[in-house]
């Protein structure tokens, strides 16, 4: 369960996030949708605690991301935008490194890595060094290592970026599997179809604020647009600063 209440964040004169609030409940997939530069990544980075909000607060399963950041991180599996792997380590070693850092005992690491390799279907290239991996292979390994400590909350920043059809499809299946396991999944995207296909809740963000937070049907009703893309554009235009 992720709860965001009225967070603000500026970088110098640029106000990246100005007052975003939403809840992402367990057992549901919440999508952050918005144009480039809307503040999606900044919001997510605050949630996985690499940035601190200027004002407002956010909690992960009740743990505050600023005051109890270590606790919060324990409950999160995060895939930052453009996450990189260690090219000289094999896929398995990359995952095992994160498992060890997350405090898994030496005996359980092996087993856990085996499970995750099977879950993400990366057995074919698990023993290879990640140098020269395709974008799809890299993303899968990056997701695998962020899930290695079995977190309750999963935050994915534009996970489908650069993935081909097959890879996107298996990513979608994984996200649904996580939802069925009762996890809280929060992911960002600027691809409309992906959000519609997956999300129970959609949070449309523009200019650092929440434009609409509703289900896909709810958004259609609110904006009076049948087509979600039109609804999206309309919502964003309404947010245009005067």
């Amino acid at each position: 369960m992720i709860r965001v209440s009225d967070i603000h964040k500026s970088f110098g004169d640029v106000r990246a996030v100005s007052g975003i609030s939403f809840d992402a409940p367990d057992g549901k997939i919440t999508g952050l949708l918005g144009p480039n530069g809307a503040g999606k990544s900044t919001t997510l980075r605050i949630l996985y605690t690499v940035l601190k909000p200027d004002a407002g607060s956010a909690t992960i399963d009740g743990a505050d991301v600023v005051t109890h950041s270590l606790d919060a991180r324990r409950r999160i599996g995060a895939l930052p935008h453009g996450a990189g792997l260690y090219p000289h380590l094999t896929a398995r070693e990359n995952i095992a490194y994160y498992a060890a850092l997350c405090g898994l005992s030496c005996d359980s690491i092996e087993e856990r890595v085996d499970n995750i390799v099977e879950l993400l279907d990366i057995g074919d290239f698990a023993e290879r060094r990640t140098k020269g991996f395709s974008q799809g292979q890299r993303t899968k390994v990056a997701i695998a290592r962020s899930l290695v400590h079995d977190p309750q909350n999963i935050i994915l920043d534009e996970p489908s970026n650069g993935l081909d059809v097959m890879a996107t499809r298996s990513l979608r299946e994984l996200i649904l599997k996580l939802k069925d396991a009762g996890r809280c999944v929060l992911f960002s995207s600027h691809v409309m179809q992906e959000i519609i296909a997956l999300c129970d809740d959609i949070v449309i963000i523009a200019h650092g604020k929440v434009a609409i937070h509703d289900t896909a049907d709810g958004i259609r009703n609110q904006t009076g647009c049948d087509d979600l893309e039109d609804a999206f554009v309309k919502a964003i235009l309404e947010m245009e600063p005067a």
Partner: protein
Amino acid sequence: MRTPVTVFKKEVLDNFRDRRTLISALLMGPLFGPLLFAFVINLSIERSLSDVDKTLDLPVIGSENASNLMRYLQSRNIDVVAGPSDREAALDAVRTGTHDVVVIVPAEYGQQLADGIPARVELISDQANAQAGRKARRVRDALRGYSRQIAALRLSARGVSPSVMRPLNIDDVDLSTPSGRSAILLGMMSYFFIFALLMGGMYLAIDTTAGERERGSLEPLLALPVTRDQLILGKIAATCVFMALSLALSLGSFFFALKFIPLQQLGMTPNFGPDVLLATFLILSPFILLGAAVMTLVASFTKSYKEAQTWLSIVLLAPTLPILIVSILTLRPRLEFMFVPSLSQHLLLVDMVKNEPLNALHVGISVTSTLAIGAVLTWLCARLYRREGLLG
């Protein structure tokens, strides 16, 4: 404690698989330094030895005017050869470098000598050229020797003892020991070791900070349930190990290189046995923490791998500065110098190679102050790692 150990193990494994790190840590410093050193010293030995032993070919204009002098030169291992046609040609030849030294014996030389007035002999050389300067000195020494000989003969002929010409008898007592003389040349080796040490950890320092950020692996790492202090500790520890490895290898390779340098021919017997080898490692080891912390600190400030490389090359040179200043001013080791990292290690090393007893207080201060500065820099690194701006 487990997290730093995990990070440490991973960084060591990762970098052992990285060819660039391996080459710089295990090849560049350890091999390049001693090889260069051996090469330079061998060259200088060869040159200084050949100057004394080799017959010097001396072009002389008007050699027929002074056959006795020519025979004297011959006895001093200087071969007289036919010189250029006239004085103008001789000046030209020296200017263009065809000849290093030319001697001109004018036609009136014999007459002047017979009349007892100082006979003029011209020595033409370009003193700005070190090689020519050495040759000119040899010829001048020979000419002076001949001059003294004639003077002594003239005095004896007048019934005066030649010793009246020598009111002073200067006796040079050189107290420098063979190992002491080595120190001058081997003084530069302390910098080689510090260089090799820093070189060994340079790519790790970059890779663990700027490299990790550029690769995009830093952000997911920071999102893990570990503190940043623990991460940076593990990273600095891994850098330390590579530095120590590089230092040990370069000490070993230096030890072997010295066996192939005929230092004894220069009157030097450096004190560089296995025990000194070990002591050198121990004296330099506090510098490892300092080096790792400095490099990590500087690399964390940079935006990219390339920028980090540029800055760290400057860091590689920084330890020479105090060594250079003290060498130029030829200052003796003093207590306050021991507070300065790199300088204190250099001075202690020179003392050791000179086979002089080490001052325990000096060693103590050197070790403590270097370690303390290293600890402070490590703490600074950790502070810096907590910044948000770290992600760039």
